């Protein structure tokens, strides 16, 4: 894959400043500062409980932060419901457990939000949905229910469902962690394709091969803080902090 295709623009997509979050008295995110440019592909890794999922869930307000500011696409995330809904319709999200709607068919899963949130006519929404289902290579499953699909297929549907909202930013919360090894590749291929098209992406993942190939920045988190961030080559070959070295030796060293 040519680096030239995956240009990062100077335009800023997400700004997080001095963000802090607590669960009760537990300080989960500590003084997070992060700026994401449009077209950047960022991989966030770290041990479990380090707050990486919580961080990306704060970006579309699935979790509320108590201090600091988050600005997405020029919209400041506050407790104003209108702002939150606006940000959520611009930011796509994929979950570890897919969270497809089991009572709706694949096609209905994909057309629901465009029809109700974007007020797209049903016919047009279905065309958009089929376009993205073709992109994730499962147009033939459109009439089935999520329970009839394999995990990898379900996750690709989840990606298509998010894409139908034409998001400008995509968040991935451990998209391959619940999948069988055989199915991880098909989901990663879809994500790589998305990256090549210039989508701004934040991925929480432990797929280090994916990080090396796609990311232009890798962030390592531990105990609610950003410990280290760097370009993938430098991050993997020459980690600076001790905790990063330990983490990398644990996940790569077998």
């Amino acid at each position, binding site marked *: 894959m040519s680096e030239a295709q995956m240009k990062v623009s100077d335009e800023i997509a997400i700004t997080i400043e001095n963000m802090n979050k607590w669960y009760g008295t537990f300080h989960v995110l500590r003084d997070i500062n992060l700026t994401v440019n449009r077209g950047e592909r960022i991989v966030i890794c770290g041990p479990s409980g380090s707050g990486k999922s919580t961080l990306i869930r704060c970006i579309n307000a699935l979790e509320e932060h108590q201090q600091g500011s988050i600005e997405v696409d020029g919209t400041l995330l506050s407790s104003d419901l209108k702002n939150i809904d606006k940000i*959520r319709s611009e*930011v796509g999200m994929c979950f570890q457990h897919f*969270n497809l*709607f089991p*009572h709706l068919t694949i096609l209905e899963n994909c057309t*629901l*939000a465009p029809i109700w949130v974007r007020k797209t006519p049903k016919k047009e929404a279905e065309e958009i949905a089929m376009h993205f289902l073709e992109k994730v290579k499962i147009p033939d499953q459109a009439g089935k229910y999520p329970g009839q699909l394999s995990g990898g297929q379900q996750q690709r549907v989840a990606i298509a469902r998010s894409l139908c909202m034409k998001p400008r930013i995509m968040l991935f919360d451990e998209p391959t962690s619940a999948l069988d090894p055989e199915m991880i590749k098909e989901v990663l291929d879809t994500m790589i394709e998305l990256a090549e098209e210039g989508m701004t992406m934040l991925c929480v993942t432990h797929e280090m091969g994916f990080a090396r190939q796609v990311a232009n920045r890798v962030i390592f988190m531990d105990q609610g803080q950003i410990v280290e961030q760097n370009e993938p080559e430098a991050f993997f070959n020459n980690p600076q902090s001790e905790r990063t070295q330990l983490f990398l030796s644990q996940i790569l060293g077998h």
Partner: protein
Amino acid sequence: MSDLHANSVAFVRTETIPESPPPGVASGPIKWMRENLFATPANTLLTLVAIYMIYLILAPTMPWILNGVWNANSLSECREILNGKSGACFAVLSERWPQLLFGFKYPAEYYWRPTLAFVLLFAAVAPVLFFDLPRKLLVMTALYPFIAFWLIWGGTILVPILALVGCGVGYAVYQRFVASNFAAGFFGGIAAAFIVWSLGGAMIPEGASEAAMLQPVPSRDLGGFMLNMMLGVTCVSLSIPIGIALALGRQSSMPIIKWICVVFIEFIRGVPLITLLFVASVMLSYFFPPDSSVDLFLRVVIMITMFSAAYIAEVIRGGLAALPKGQYEAADSLGLDYAQAMRLIILPQALKISIPGIVNVAVGLFKDTTLVSVISMFDLVGMIRGPILASTEWNGVYWELLGFAALLFFVVCYGISQYSQWLERRLATDHR
């Protein structure tokens, strides 16, 4: 295979084993009986004992039923006809048939009105129960309450028309304002409907009822199984939406709404239905303006509805709790607002989970409508206990009358149960 294994552990399959049918899946009644009735000596013995028990029960009851007398004017006449033989006196059913169905005060020449309302009920309920039917049929469902009210109670047609217009205006106001603010739409709609009702109510001329096409029948003249059906249908159809609202309210993040719902549910669940019915019959009028006389039927409907709504709310809360949190998050992350997320994602799934519980409450409610006989409303059981058994002609025909009541209720409740099982199968999308 063993040779191969002896030589080496390495093994490569070069051909796929073709699929073959499973061995010996013969079927048929004889096989079924052998497996289920006569599998072991103990099983055979139990089967024989069970057959004997069935015989013991049927031996006296079948002649009693088959020998039944259908034409007689009193119990003593029945006994004369039977002449000492065992036999039921079903004549009470044929002689008191209209009373059992409509009560003893409903004017006989108007029996066609509730009968027509009953027939129309099927047309009104069908599009709700069977959602594959064309959606346009829902118009009938929307109009049915007003038509049925007019048919059963009679009086001037202006009253149901006014009620319908009020609902229409309320809905229009709701539609107009709901886009900007849900609360404004909701309360504005209710207020608009009330304004229309009170203005229109003042305009209906005095004595319009006497000159009406359908002669008015007061609520106290309603009775029999008709009363059970009316209470059952009205209360079930009102308590499901109220129950949904209470269940959602109980989960609300707004503390006032949450606590109103919690207090309501816990209070109503903690009080026996009989108590609420007594409150309805003697005390509820204290809560209404002094000069207004709220109909007893309406008061009972309010009480039974509140009672079952509280139960249904808890059943639905169970369904809501059973949904994975991911469903809420997925709905949120797609940008759906609260109402959309509930209507499109959460409630369809939660209600599907709650079907057995809701049906349980609905069946229980329908049977509990017989409790109104204790506040001297003559429903089916009230009719049997009161006017019929107390009459000199039919004093003592307990089995036939109560058996008939049981049969009527069983037919309706079993129907509801069968429908709900069909619905569950129809909605099953997870593992087809």
